[in-house]
């Protein structure tokens, strides 16, 4: 067993002459939760987008459950297997929460409306907003919207979930409810790759922490190591900055 669910190998990506990712390698095994942190512009979002083929890279390759992203003939299918959650939720504002969650299962996966709705209610219940199913996203609080977005990703029953700063657009009192859902997912065995600066979450939930700077992975360690003895100078600086801010 034990091929990693996500394997990133020596990925390099340039936007014109700007190097956004430089020889990045990373594996996420089944059931693992890895947190990525790093300063703005360090390539964290770009890395996540490479994993589900939303961004084309020039060097290296990514494998999702053994399938190569660069050689993938059926990207929609590959993407269905990797849930993605965005900083600004990106729910479809003209649809109800239920429609948001059932759209892809029906149109991309080919489930019947009934099957899709059953799934949707199951996952909306899991994130605690089943009572909001018939509302439009604009009527929900930020925390509820992000939980709806998580349910939308879960409804495709993905093998792994990618989170891109899921709480950084939220008011403090709503951050907790989203982190709670994520913690619950991680405990339930979901394979997760999470870009976040919530170090409390990292400490408590993550198995490993990755620190990125200027398109490179500067540090990759287990949680204990990372917080007790971060080696790179740059990491220490960054940790001091964000830990002081909290």
């Amino acid at each position, binding site marked *: 067993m034990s091929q990693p669910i996500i394997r990133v190998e020596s990925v390099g990506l340039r936007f014109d002459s700007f190097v956004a990712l430089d020889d990045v390698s990373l594996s996420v095994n089944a059931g693992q939760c890895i947190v990525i942190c790093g300063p703005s512009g360090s390539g964290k979002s770009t890395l996540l*987008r490479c994993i*589900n083929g*939303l961004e084309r890279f020039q060097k290296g390759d990514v494998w999702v459950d053994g399938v190569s992203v660069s050689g993938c003939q059926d990207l*929609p*299918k590959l*993407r*269905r297997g*990797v*849930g*993605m959650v*965005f900083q*600004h939720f*990106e*729910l*479809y*504002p*003209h649809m109800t929460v239920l429609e948001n969650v059932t*759209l*892809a299962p029906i*149109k*991309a*996966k080919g489930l019947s409306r009934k099957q899709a709705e059953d799934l949707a209610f199951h996952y909306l219940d899991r994130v605690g907003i089943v009572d909001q199913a018939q*509302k*439009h*996203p*604009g*009527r*929900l609080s930020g925390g509820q919207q992000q939980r709806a*977005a998580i349910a*939308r*990703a879960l409804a*495709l029953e993905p093998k792994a979930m990618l989170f891109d700063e899921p709480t950084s657009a939220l008011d403090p009192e709503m951050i907790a409810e989203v982190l709670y859902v994520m913690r619950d997912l991680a405990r339930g065995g979901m394979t997760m790759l999470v870009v976040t600066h919530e170090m409390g979450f990292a400490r408590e939930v993550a198995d490993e922490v990755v620190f990125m700077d200027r398109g490179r992975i500067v540090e990759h360690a287990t949680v204990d190591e990372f917080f007790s003895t971060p080696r790179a100078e740059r990491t220490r600086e960054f940790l001091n900055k964000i830990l002081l801010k909290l």
Partner: protein
Amino acid sequence: MRYEFNWGLLWREPYFDWIVEGILTTFHLALLAWILALCLGIVIGVLRVTNSRLLRAIGTTYVEVFRNIPLIVQLFLWLYVVPQMLPREFSFWWNRLDNVPYWTAMIGISFYTSARLAEQIRSALRAIPPGQFKAGLSTGLTQVQVYRYVIVPYALRIIIPALTSEFLTVFKNTALALTIGVIEITATTRRIEAWSFRGIEAYTVASLTYIATTILVILFMSWLERRYQIPGLIKRGEARV
């Protein structure tokens, strides 16, 4: 000499039948042209924002050609020039159709309108956060599906007010069809005038038709706008409810 009104004339044969006929022609010409224009406009508008340079160039050319030649000139081109350029068999078939001026007008008006609509749709598409597209793709929808189910429906809701005024323009532009021989309501009025010398009555009927329809369309579209407004989305200076 004072003009003596004779409204009763309008109810007499053959004028009454002509009027009904003319109004109906205006209506279905406007509606058919509108539906075709909307479909074409959506496709062209989407082409103009895709990643493919070729598709964008096609979209831009289409818009510039059909938007910048005056409609009346386009109608003549469609009627006299285009059929000459098509294969012989096709132009044979086309010229034998029952109502060539009518179909010509419909094509001409809808191409012209679709170029204008494409511009409206393009700017609405631009206003949609790019994250919506990424979100759609990330759930395994194909590009076409993302446009079909997410981006275009979203964009159409944003531009309902602009669609209203475009529809009213189409409706009024149908009057130009008389220049290539379509007997819609304005042409009908001129015919009544020529037969009976009762111009004022006839033109009143045409004007009332346009005004009444316009009002109905505006009412319908504002209902549509309320029905399809996106809850919780702040728009046009309204307070968030």
